[in-house]
Structure formats: structure tokens, C-alpha cells
């Protein structure tokens, strides 16, 4: 290998590293922007704690067998108040440990949020992109469909679907996904329509880059900000709507899920047994609040008027 080749390779390695560092610095700038907002920091901390709880659930509390997502039953200790030995947050009517529900319920909620938001974001982004890029009658048909979906209130629509499909946790995920993808489709379409007008898209066409590359390199990266913000907000909102559906009995009984626990515990509130629904209710509230705080912070940090200028 000649000296020239060697220095060139060295230069390549160094420069690839430089590009990476520069990009990381930009990302870091966004994070810094978020860190300067106390509400966002609180949200991030709460989310981090929830994630730790979900990840380490099997080490915090021994999983119930055979199905760890079912509430354990301690028939010897039903309706015990918080502070009872072995049941620090009390028990439910069926002797379910409320603490177990709170901790393992974070896994269920995370699963619900990730599955619903993940699938709706992907489907919505694809549909919105196609509508915006292709235009014409394809756009027309897709957007009429979106309009129909959007004309029905979210909760009622999800409720109807879940009711038709039958009560199960899986069906709640499905119902929410069916209802929520249209939001992303609409946001994405508007973004694509706006961004494809930009001169930098024409500049890429003049170079002769392929349509797919132009979409992936120019349009998509400049379009994802509002989708990301919406997804963050929905991570919280989805758990709220899911809890509502669970609350009216569209989920499975006995499952370690916050909404179900609130629903099953609410009958006891009148007789003074507040704990069975209050603790899981608090978790739902914290979860939704935390993601909304972070979503708002993200929106400000990614504001196109300030970002990177």
C-alpha cells in the first residue's frame, strides 16, 4: 500500500468520524433545548422511572405463574388496606396485590403504547406519504377515507370496534390502532405536500437522484418532526383511552392492567376501599402527564423556527 493510499484511508476514517460527531452535536443541541425546560425534565424522569419499573418488574416482584400478566390471587387476604404485611398497597376484592398490579401494569401499558403508537405511526406515515407524493385520485380516495375516520369521535369509535371484537386486551390495542392511524396520515400528507415544493427537492431532481432517494433523504427527514411530537403525546394519550375502554369492561378481567384495576376497584370506593383503584389511577395519570410534558418539550425543541438556526 502506498503512502498516498494510506493517508487517504486515514483521512476517510477521520472525516467519517467528524461527520458523525457533527450530527451528534446537533442531536445533543435538541436534547439540551429540552433539558432547559423543567417540565420536560420532570416528564423525562417520570418516564425513565416507569421504564425502569417495567424492565425490572420480574426482579422487583416475583412473576405470577403461569401468566405473569394475570393478577396473583391471595384468597387469604382480600380487601386488605395498604400497609398490610406482604401487600404494601393493599389488595383487591379477589385478593390481588395492588402493588403487583401497579408494577406489572407498567409493562402492559408500555406494550399498549408501543404497539398502538408504533403501528399507527408506520401506517399513517406510509399512507400520508403516498397520498402526498402520488396526488391525484389516489390522494383523493385516501383522504376521503381519512375524513370518514376523523368524523367519528376517537373514543366512541374505539369503543364500538372493541365492543364488536369482544372484550380482550389485544382487541383494545387493535381498536386503538384502527382509530388513530388517520391522524398520522393527515399530518404526514400535509408535511409531504409542503416539503415537496421546496427548492432542495428540485435541486435533488436536477442532480438526477431517484424518487425513492429524494423521499428518504429530503422529504421524510424534514417531515417527521410533527409526527414525532404527535407520537410522544399519543404514548400517553393511548393509555388514557385504553384505560377508559378497560374501565367499561372491554378488557380481560383479572389482567394486571391499570385501567382494569381502576375499573374493578371503583365499586369499593363507596365502602371506603379507595386503594384498589387510586394507585393504578395515579399511574395512568402520571404516565399520560409525563409523555405530554415531554411531547410539548420536544415540540419546542424541534421548532423549525429555532432548530439549527
Amino acid at each position, binding site marked *: 500500500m502506498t503512502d498516498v493510499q494510506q493517508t*487517504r*484511508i486515514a*483521512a*476517510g*476514517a477521520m*472525516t*467519517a468520524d*467528524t*461527520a458523525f*460527531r*457533527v*450530527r451528534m452535536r*446537533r442531536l445533543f443541541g435538541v436534547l439540551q433545548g429540552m433539558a432547559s425546560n423543567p417540565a420536560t425534565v420532570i416528564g423525562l424522569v417520570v418516564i425513565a422511572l416507569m421504564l425502569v419499573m417495567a424492565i425490572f418488574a420480574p426482579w422487583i416482584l416475583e412473576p405470577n405463574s403461569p401468566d405473569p400478566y394475570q393478577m396473583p390471587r391471595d384468597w387469604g387476604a382480600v380487601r386488605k388496606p395498604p400497609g398490610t404485611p406482604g401487600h404494601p398497597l393493599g389488595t383487591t376484592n379477589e385478593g390481588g396485590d395492588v402493588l403487583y398490579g401497579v408494577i406489572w401494569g407498567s409493562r402492559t401499558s408500555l406494550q399498549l403504547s408501543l404497539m398502538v403508537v408504533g403501528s399507527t405511526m408506520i401506517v399513517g406515515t406510509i399512507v400520508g406519504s403516498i397520498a402526498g407524493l402520488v396526488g391525484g385520485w389516489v390522494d383523493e380516495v385516501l383522504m376521503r377515507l381519512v375524513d370518514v375516520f376523523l368524523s367519528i369521535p376517537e373514543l366512541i369509535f374505539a369503543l364500538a370496534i372493541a365492543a364488536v371484537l369482544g372484550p380482550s386486551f389485544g382487541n383494545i390495542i387493535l381498536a386503538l390502532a384502527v382509530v388513530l392511524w388517520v391522524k398520522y396520515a393527515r399530518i404526514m400528507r400535509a408535511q409531504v405536500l409542503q416539503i415537496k415544493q*421546496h*427548492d*432542495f427537492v*428540485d*435541486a*435533488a*431532481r*436536477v*442532480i*438526477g*437522484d*431517484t424518487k425513492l*432517494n429524494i423521499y428518504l*433523504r*429530503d422529504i421524510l*427527514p*424534514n417531515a417527521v418532526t410533527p409526527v414525532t411530537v404527535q407520537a410522544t403525546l399519543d404514548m400517553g394519550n393511548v393509555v388514557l383511552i385504553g384505560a377508559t375502554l378497560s374501565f367499561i369492561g372491554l378488557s380481560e378481567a383479572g389482567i394486571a392492567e391499570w385501567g382494569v384495576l381502576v375499573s374493578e376497584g371503583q365499586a369499593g370506593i363507596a365502602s371506603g376501599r379507595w386503594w384498589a383503584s387510586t394507585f393504578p389511577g395515579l399511574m395512568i395519570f402520571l404516565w399520560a402527564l409525563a409523555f405530554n410534558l415531554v411531547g410539548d418539550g420536544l415540540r419546542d425543541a424541534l421548532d423549525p423556527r429555532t432548530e*439549527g*438556526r
Partner: protein
Amino acid sequence: MRAAAEPQADDLILSIREVKKHYPIREGALQRVVGHVRAVDGVSFDIRRGQTVGLVGESGCGKTTLGRVIAALADPTDGGVHYSMDGAMCRIDRLEGKAARTFRRNCQMVFQDSYASLNPRHLVIDLVGRPLKVYNEAASSDLVERVVELLDQVGLGRQHLYRYPHQFSGGQRQRISIARALALNPEVIVLDEPTSALDVSVQAQILNLLNDLQKERNLAYLFVTHDLSVVRHMADRLVVMYLGKVAEAGETQAIFDSPHHPYTRELMAAKPDMEAEANVEIRGLEGTVPDPARPPQGCRFHTRCELATSACGWEVDDVVRWLEDAPGMFEHLVGVERTTEFAAELAFDTEEAAGLLSMAVRSEQVPEAMRAAMRRLNLDGTKVEIEFEDVGEVELTARDDGRMAACVLAPQEVASWKSP
């Protein structure tokens, strides 16, 4: 596909032939097409190797639209842009595969807004290196070296590789755009007002850079601008556009020495002392530009031309335009029934208004040429019948020494005319 070969000089790169670009105007819930904006309406000229063609005209005359058609960013409604390849002229919108790529590489574009034309999320290395990647010309460390070379040519350097567009000044950003356009070593670059967003001193630097690059690489430029002083120093040939058509074309120096079209004359006169004030933009001529969806008959410039004759295309619309401008007249007009563009019956709601109009069009209130073109004027109660001489379009015709102008007047008549 290859169009029939036409005789050509060796150095011909692009031949623009009768190019039209009409945008549909849609209205109503059904989005029915109710008309067309004739942004470009039959334009022809050639671009040769090493040559700069200046495309000038007021805002909205179709310069950008034409530039986009030439860069194949938009398909023409009619006519075509022919590209010289392997000794034949091929229509660019019919090229496929390898031939299309060859054209793409050889015709690049620099946009007016340097910020908008650079992806804000890409680093300079991504932006300038992208054309090289698209055509697999370079990768990794080789790519870096090629990009550094290009940056060097436009007066930037290695230290700028890993910066975002927003970290540069407007002039530097335009240099990045130019470097990107140069990457594939094209034959021709369409420059759409490349300096109009820049400060005067920076403008001069970029123009010098463009001149140097042209000499080095024997580049051809289509220089789109509304700044005549810029074009005077840049362009070998000029194409002056008005409302989608060519008003005048020819050697830059010859046109500046003696414009053959009154519009060109006005454009130049509208710039107070061009040599001293090198960067004052066209001040705007008298009168408003007519709607490009309904261009005037005859000569499109006749509504604003101080030299207009009776043969310049006076028509019913001129009467309607006069009514629009005359205080308190237009609201009395209740209907216009045209037989042709040149003959119509105008209905008013009062006999008085009809009488006023027929008086006005016989008086000093309208141009003398318009009165001379009037064949018939008949007042009948609330109705006014009016008819003008039916004339064809004023075509672009060849003059002496290879110049073209679309005007019924002889060059010396334009030259000798003195503003009152």
C-alpha cells in the same frame, strides 16, 4: 427515442423550440379547468458551448418557468427542448435510460434562494458529494477529496466540509450551490437569479466566480435575471421576454446599443444611469402587466407601449380595461357580447353611460392608435357596438445582423422615438 436529426453547428448544446408552458386554472367544487395561465407561450432560442444567454424580463413574464422546463423540472405543454447528443438533437422529455442520465448530468441548475435549495439537514459534504454518489463517481475518502476540490474551486475549503447550510452567509451558500452544480462537470447551467438575493459586493464576487468557472470549463449559462446591469456584463446574447413571449433577442452589446423593441427600450430607460448605479433593479415600467391567462391580441405589449400603432392589436379588451380604470364607469357595464376578440356589443344600464363611452373612445382619453384602429362605433340606446381592425399576432422576425424582434415598427423608428 431520438428525434429526427437537424442540421447543427458543433457547439450547439440546447435548442429551445416553440416551448409553451400553460398552467390550468381550476375553479369550483369540481375543479373544472376554466382557463390557462400562459406562463411561457412559444419561445425559441439556442444555447451554445461556452456562451451565456441572458433571459430578462419583468416579474411574472415566465423566466423561471422557462428555466425549469429547460432543466427538465417541468414538461412543456407544447414544443420542446432539444439537447445535442452524439451529433443529433434529442427532445429532453423523450429521453430514456442512459440518454436521460447523460442529459441530467450535463444540465444543472442554481436556484435563487440559496437557503431553500440546500437541504437544511445535510452537511456540505453530503450536499456537494451527492451528485457524485448518485452516479457512483466517488465513495468514502475519494469522495471527500473530490468535494474538497470542488469547494476549492468556488473559494471554500476543507474546513467547511462538516457544516450545515445555516452556518454560512448567503454568498457562501450560493458558492455551495455552484459547487454542487459543478460536481458532474456539466455543459450548461441554468442560473435562476443566482445573485438577486445577495448584497451588492457579494453579488460581484459571485458573478466573477461564475465568469472564471465559465472560462476554465467552457461552460454555457442560461442566466435568468431581471437585473439588466448584471446581464450586460455576463451575457453574450440576450433574450428579452414579455408575457411569456420573446420580445427581442440578439447580441447583448447590439441590443444595448440600439434596442429594436420598445419594451427593451423602456426596460433600459427604466434604469436610471446604469453605469453609475450598477445594481438598481428594473424600476418597473408604466402601467400594469396584463393577465397572462388572457394575453392581449396582436402585440402583447400594446397596452403599455407608447409607440403603439393602429396595427398593434387593439381589441375589445382594451375598451373593457379602459372602463375598469375610468372612475364610475365599470359598474354601468352590464354585458359584453363578443363576436370576436375585435368586435363586440357592450351593454350598459343607462343611456348616459353608453353615450359617455362612445364619446370617450372618440376622444383624447384613449390612445390615438386605438382610435385609428377602430373600424366601427355605433351607439344604440344603452348599447355600444364597437369593432377594431382584425390583426394577427405580431411575430418575432429576424432583423439585420441576426437580431430578432417582435414589433411592427422598423428599428430606426424605435431608435428615433423621443419620450414626450
